[in-house]
């Protein structure tokens, strides 16, 4: 069955340290891949998307993600966390030919001063 797994429900980092949010998908077909961010009491906002043009994708606010087909992963990273990065992050997958998206269960990122 097609699925997307976010390996950590909660990640806590100190301000200025790197961020790594992990995402794996299960499928024998290459999907479209996205990361969305949700700040408290807000709707979701697109951070970045995988277009197949490059395996390393740069998004807004200094985030980037690397598509690794051999590992079926699309992990989200940022070199240096900022307090404003505290939010919930969702890895999202769409398989070609399907009209809907599959959301991971989310990873809540906390940033300590």
């Amino acid at each position, binding site marked *: 069955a097609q699925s997307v797994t*976010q390996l950590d429900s909660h990640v806590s980092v100190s301000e200025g340290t790197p961020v790594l949010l992990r995402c794996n998908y299960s499928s024998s077909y290459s999907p479209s891949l996205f990361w969305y961010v949700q700040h408290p009491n807000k709707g*979701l906002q697109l951070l970045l998307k995988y277009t197949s043009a490059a395996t390393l994708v740069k998004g807004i606010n200094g985030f980037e993600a690397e598509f690794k087909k051999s590992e079926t992963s699309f992990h989200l990273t940022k070199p240096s966390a900022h307090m404003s990065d505290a939010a919930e992050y969702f890895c999202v997958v769409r398989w070609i030919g399907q*009209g809907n*998206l599959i959301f991971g269960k989310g990873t809540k990122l906390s940033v300590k001063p």
Partner: protein
Amino acid sequence: NAGVTQTPKFRVLKTGQSMTLLCAQDMNHEYMYWYRQDPGLGLRLIHYSVGEGTTAKGEVPDGYNVSRLKKQNFLLGLESAAPSQTSVYFCASSSGQGLEKLFFGSGTQLSVL
């Protein structure tokens, strides 16, 4: 730029009552979606629509109905509300399949007592 507008923002229902959530988008998008968000479960697709006059079931459609009579509107109905339907509901739209991004509304907090 209104984008995606959801009404109402908050609602409290008694078990057995009915209500309709309205989603309106002004971007001429073909695709519209209704999700529910619950702690630890991420976003789950209730129903979606790939164009005016069409609807399809998502992951958790039971207890909900939808209609897409006009391209810009996507209505979500609860005929007989149950406490299990207490959730935050998000509407989203996109221009089509593939790599386009979703635009989300700001959510509706629904409590069923």
